[in-house]
């Protein structure tokens, strides 16, 4: 990779001064939630490392992860694409098409075997021999497996790649399958969200390019720096939750006052994402701030948890769509109470029938 520029060289050549380069590094460090001492490390890494090739594949998805990515304000998506990484393949943005586009994949494998990042948006369907997602006449899963076998590490963008997302919702007609269930021998960083926040996406890329390694991951493979907190724990409406002040229905008095959205279904208490801290579109707002509860879009299979508008949702076992734990529980407890009453009555009757004979038991 000797003829490649480092990120720093690229930035210098794009007319960026050393001062603003260092400023970029410290902003990046801050964006990653790290202290100023890390700014130096990032600077060092970017000064000495060549631009990392990135192959960005699309499976079954809605492309909103790409759309989110280009909303990034710091760093700007254009700077990431032109200066930080080398986005050598991305069918949504690339100029080439047809076989000229597919040739790039082969060239990448030859030139950068084991040294490129595979960014996966969407997921492969497995039903119908994979032919619910056809690329170049072949099933997407083949392309994914091939490129994965030669890459250095995988980024699973969004809830599609991380968990399966909407096309994997019941009954998952195409058997859409998340990346980690088909690729087992490569490090994978999941960046869930439907879509993920732009600055979270570019933050993860920056980290990987700067440090040449995956960020620290939690138990479920998500970067701790963005996913270790539940929205609920950093939500600015939390004082209203603790006080017991809820929006009871949309546009009521409580809604205008900014009360907690728990009763209209907010899934903030079970959702790990950076919305309540980083916020969306340059830190402007996030779903809860605008007045709609969180859907839980960064969580596994949030589509099949029942209503987006009720606090208690379903168990994920009841084949029929929407029985909640409360629904089932109330029935069970009711049945138990009725059963007990009936048994008591039967006992009395049976006791009276043969008054002579006693019975006993204990529990």
């Amino acid at each position: 990779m000797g003829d490649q520029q480092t990120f720093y060289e690229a930035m210098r050549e794009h007319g960026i001064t050393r001062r603003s380069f260092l400023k970029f590094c410290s902003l990046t460090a801050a964006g990653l939630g790290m202290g100023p001492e890390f700014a130096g490390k990032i600077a060092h890494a970017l000064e000495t490392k060549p631009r990392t090739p990135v192959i960005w594949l699309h499976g079954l998805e809605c492309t909103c992860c790409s759309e989110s990515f280009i909303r990034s304000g710091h760093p700007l998506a254009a700077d990431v694409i032109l200066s930080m990484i080398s986005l050598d393949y991305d069918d949504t943005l690339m100029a080439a098409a047809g076989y000229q586009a597919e040739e790039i994949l082969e060239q990448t494998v030859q030139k950068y075997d084991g040294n490129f990042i595979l960014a996966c948006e969407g997921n492969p369907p497995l039903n119908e021999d994979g032919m619910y997602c056809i690329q170049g006449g072949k099933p997407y899963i083949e392309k994914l497996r091939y490129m994965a076998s030669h890459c250095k590490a995988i980024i699973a963008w969004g809830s599609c790649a991380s968990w399966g997302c909407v096309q994997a919702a019941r009954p998952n007609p195409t058997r859409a399958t998340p990346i980690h269930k088909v690729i087992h021998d490569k490090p994978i960083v999941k960046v869930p969200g439907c879509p993920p926040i732009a600055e979270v996406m570019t933050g993860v890329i920056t980290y990987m390019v700067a440090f040449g390694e995956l960020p620290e991951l939690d138990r479920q493979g998500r970067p701790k720096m963005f996913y270790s907190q539940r929205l609920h724990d950093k939500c600015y409406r939390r004082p209203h939750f603790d006080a017991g002040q809820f929006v009871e229905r949309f546009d009521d008095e409580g809604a205008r006052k900014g009360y907690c959205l728990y009763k209209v279904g907010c899934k903030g208490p079970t959702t790990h994402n950076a919305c309540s801290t980083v916020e969306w579109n340059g830190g402007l707002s996030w779903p809860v701030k605008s007045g709609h509860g969180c859907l839980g879009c960064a969580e596994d299979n949030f589509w099949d948890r029942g209503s987006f508008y009720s606090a208690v949702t379903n168990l994920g076992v009841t084949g029929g769509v929407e029985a909640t734990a409360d629904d089932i529980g109330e029935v069970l407890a009711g049945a138990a109470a009725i059963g007990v009453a009936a048994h008591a009555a039967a006992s009395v009757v049976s006791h009276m029938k043969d008054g002579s004979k006693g019975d006993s038991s204990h529990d």
Partner: protein
Amino acid sequence: MNSTAAAPHDPASREPVYVFEVPVRVWHWLHTFSFLALAVSGYLIANPLPSIGGEASDHFLMGNIRLVHFIAAYVFAIGFAVRIYWALVGNRYARELFILPIWRGDWWCGLLHEIRFYLFLSKDTPVSLGHNPLAQVAMFLFNVLGTLFMIGTGFALYGQALGIGSWADRLFGWIIPLIGSEALVRNWHIMGMWLMLVFVIIHIYMAVRADIMGRTSSVSTIIGGWRLFRNGRR
């Protein structure tokens, strides 16, 4: 056939037996009241009371309900830990809760008999010193496993609030990916409450029923510790 557990003491002798030692009795009532506190507060967490007005800083209703839940949760969990310890050092009846003697033929006979009895298929009253086999099964499934499940899922959720790397997360956090997602854990936590509640309803009924109709004491046993035997007729 009127005996189930192989007892050192012949129930026919009608002598009172010291069954539940003090720690078991104290635990039983701590367990009862912490469970009820957990169920009520938990229900109110899942289905909050009507919204109240005024300044958020003047109120802490939901916060207090959660506080009750968490205090009761600690009592519930620590109490259960102590109860497990007592199973190791206490009398033979202290162990019954945790061990289903499924390897014993007469235990199965007793279980069958008990089921027939409660279905009014048999009039022969079973008598046990400790728990009867049916009660043992119910207690083991709904109470022992139920309690462990509620503690596990509860502290797993609690660990998410405390934060990644907190003690509760390190000890119980693995339960979340095991069940699937946090939302699912929460829903099963609620389901667990309902299942335990079903047990409690039946349990209390059986206890009171046995006290009224049975040949042995029941409620007074879990209060005073001694199993008393009545004449067999009343």
